[in-house]
């Protein structure tokens, strides 16, 4: 039975990979393989980043093998953090919010088995995100370190144990969020509390990562001192590091802690699951003060408002598709606060390596904002999120292009002010010329329009209406992954392109000209994709 439940969970996630949405039949093998190849490439790209990060430890590899555990302790900690970061936002929704909870609980299925099937998805995500760090870290060590046969075996076991450890921690966090969120009666209040808790967690995560970077740099030069501190203050991480090196006692300790933690977590969750999963079926329906009938507003305004209510009505949607709205200005404010340190670092870079920092600064500023705001994929899952409600829009007297425009408008209304504000703050902080601020704002605006339009295009071309948990179209979809990837590629193209032009073609190529060129390019791209949306996209949406 458990196998059937787990199969059901994963088939929901992978359905869009295998099944054609129109015919309901299996997709051609070529399409399936292409989807998986693209997915694998994205994962390889991310794993490559962490592999590159391991090079910080190259000096440590030249020291005695007895201190190499520090490497695995550090990378293991990053792996655990990323694992938690990657899955924690969906744990609450994955465990307690699926629409089929009541249906399955009405069947002769024990809550524990249902819970285990839900946890399997959390574990899958934990394995994916932790593995992105841990697997390349191990490969790095096998190339540059001194592995033994036993350490390799233990590394495989550790990957599984880290997944277990991360899943347990994430489930506990999800459980705590559920306890707090479900104590709030109002549905919107629940969403906002979940978002607030998650944002607090994210800031904590970035604070930890920030400290970790400093710690890693310090660690490379002071392995013994840091090693002693880890032993004293983070003994479990020390055991993890030692276990990865083939220490059997440490392996036993880390395995024991992971298994006991998972046991406690499963016990608590299974005892409370029934109550929380059924309690969450919306707010208590109480008779209350008379409802306010609003004044008439226009059709487009009503459609945009509906999209806004959909966005703000779901913590999962806000956290996974709109975090950049807050994060982008937060990064800009951070730069403003640290402006003196940044400017002196830039000037040091200028004098030490002879890099013309001033020439690159506008591009880098735009690239940083574009990178952070790539987290904004508001429009991408918006079609799939219509789910079983699609009949409403289809039966209403509205043009399909208005439905599309409303989805685009919400994306732009939410994301454009955020990037424009950020470029202004960064401009002041980094003393950018006003021309660059204006051009940067223009470029970031068209990039935002482009991401919104291309995301909606993917959403229309490859929708998924058959979900029981909204994390499926929001988080576990290829559409979102593609759009995120495009969002990451854009800053690389901007900075890399400018660097290559200056190095090989025109050494004193003006940043303003380059920015203007890309404003035009993206404006054309927006026009092209929008035209598709309003012609082919409209037809495709009508066919759904």
């Amino acid at each position, binding site marked *: 039975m458990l196998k059937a439940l787990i199969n059901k969970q994963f088939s929901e996630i992978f359905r869009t990979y295998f099944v054609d949405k129109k015919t309901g039949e299996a997709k051609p093998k070529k399409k399936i393989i292409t989807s998986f190849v693209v997915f694998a490439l994205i994962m390889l790209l991310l794993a490559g980043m962490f592999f590159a990060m391991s090079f910080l430890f190259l000096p440590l590899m030249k020291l005695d093998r007895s201190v190499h555990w520090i490497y695995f302790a550090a990378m293991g900690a990053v792996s655990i953090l990323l694992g938690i970061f990657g899955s924690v936002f969906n744990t609450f929704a994955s465990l307690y919010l699926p629409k089929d909870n009541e249906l399955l609980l009405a069947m002769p299925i024990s809550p524990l088995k249902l819970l285990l099937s839900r946890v399997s998805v959390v574990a899958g995500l934990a394995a994916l995100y932790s593995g992105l760090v841990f697997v390349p870290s191990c490969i790095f060590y096998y190339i540059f370190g001194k592995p033994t046969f036993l350490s390799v075996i233990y590394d495989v076991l550790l990957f599984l144990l880290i997944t277990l450890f991360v899943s347990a921690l994430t489930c506990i966090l999800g459980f705590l969020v559920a306890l707090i969120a479900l104590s709030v009666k109002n549905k919107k209040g629940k969403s906002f509390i979940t978002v607030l808790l998650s944002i607090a967690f994210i800031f904590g995560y970035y604070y930890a990562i920030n400290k970790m970077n400093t710690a890693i740099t310090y660690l490379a030069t002071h392995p013994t001192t840091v090693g002693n501190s880890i032993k004293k203050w983070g003994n479990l991480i020390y055991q993890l590091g030692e276990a990865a090196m083939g220490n059997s006692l440490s392996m036993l300790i880390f395995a024991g802690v992971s298994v006991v933690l998972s046991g406690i977590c499963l016990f608590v969750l299974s005892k409370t699951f029934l109550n929380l999963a059924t309690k969450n*079926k919306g707010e208590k329906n109480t008779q209350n003060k008379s409802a306010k009938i609003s004044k008439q507003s226009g059709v487009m305004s009503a459609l945009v408002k*509906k999209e806004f209510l959909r966005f703000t009505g779901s913590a999962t949607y806000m956290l996974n598709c709109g975090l950049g709205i807050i994060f982008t200005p937060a990064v800009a404010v951070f730069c403003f606060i640290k402006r003196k340190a940044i400017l002196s670092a830039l000037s040091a870079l200028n004098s030490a390596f002879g890099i013309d920092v001033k020439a690159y600064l506008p591009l880098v500023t735009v690239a940083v904002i574009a990178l952070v705001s790539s987290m904004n994929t508001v429009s991408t899952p918006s079609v799939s999120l219509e789910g079983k409600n699609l009949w409403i829009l289809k039966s209403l007297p509205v043009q399909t292009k208005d439905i599309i425009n409303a989805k685009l408008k919400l994306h732009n209304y939410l994301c454009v002010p955020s990037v424009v504000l950020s470029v202004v703050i960064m401009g002041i902080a980094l003393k950018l010329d006003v021309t660059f601020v204006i051009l940067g704002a223009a470029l970031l605006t068209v990039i935002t329009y482009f991401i919104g339009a291309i995301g909606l295009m993917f959403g229309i071309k490859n929708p998924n209406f058959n979900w029981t948990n909204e994390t499926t179209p929001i988080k576990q979809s290829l559409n979102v992954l593609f759009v995120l990837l495009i969002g990451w590629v854009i800053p690389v193209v901007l900075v890399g392109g400018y660097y290559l032009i200056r190095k090989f073609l025109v050494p004193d190529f003006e940043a303003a000209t380059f920015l203007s060129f890309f404003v035009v390019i993206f404006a054309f791209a927006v026009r092209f994709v929008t035209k598709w949306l309003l012609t082919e996209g409209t037809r495709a949406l009508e066919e759904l």
Partner: protein
Amino acid sequence: MLQINNLTKIYGDKKAVDNLSIHIKPGEIYGFIGHNGAGKTTTLKSAVGILKFEQGEILVDGISVKENPVECKKRIAYIPDNPDLYDFMTGIKYLNFIADIYEVGENERNERINKYSELFEIKDNLNSSVSSYSHGMKQKLAVISALIHNPKLIIMDEPFVGLDPKAAHILKEIMREVCQNGGAIFFSTHVLEVAEKLCDKVAIIKDGKLVKSGTMDEVKGDETLESVFLELEA
């Protein structure tokens, strides 16, 4: 009011609706009955403009659903078999949204929301989230939202499912009122007694084909609608 001429809708290799023609005049309550999977919902959805169809023509108030779906939809209200409404809205926000889309003025929406929410006894629940509603309450909300723009034609798929006896009675009264005011109702049902008592005309569909239609007397004669239906299904 509604003319369905030679409608054919195909899913893959299967004809869900095969050359079906139904004409509904203003003032008529038209029942649509048939076994599960006969093609009732497909026909209703095609008439509303939700489903595209391969052959035939559907006219609402003389306007083609294929050519001008938006104009047709302005005259129609549709209530599906399962009221999946926006869970992220409160009842009143949903009604305001529908009223905005149909461009219903403040006074009219005020009057209609108050009237129907009081009739269906959900006025005090309109500030609650739709996600907290029972199936019956969602059905009531769907009915109110359908009436908010005073439609000429109401198309309903199993409208009485989930409604309590009092609400079902009120809905029947409203259906009669709509028809008395020159509107028309086209609805599917499995409750043959309701169809027999409520409908002016009835159509029976089997495997996508219309097997019998006309006034209630023409269809059932001296028998009951149930016995006619069972004979046709045999």
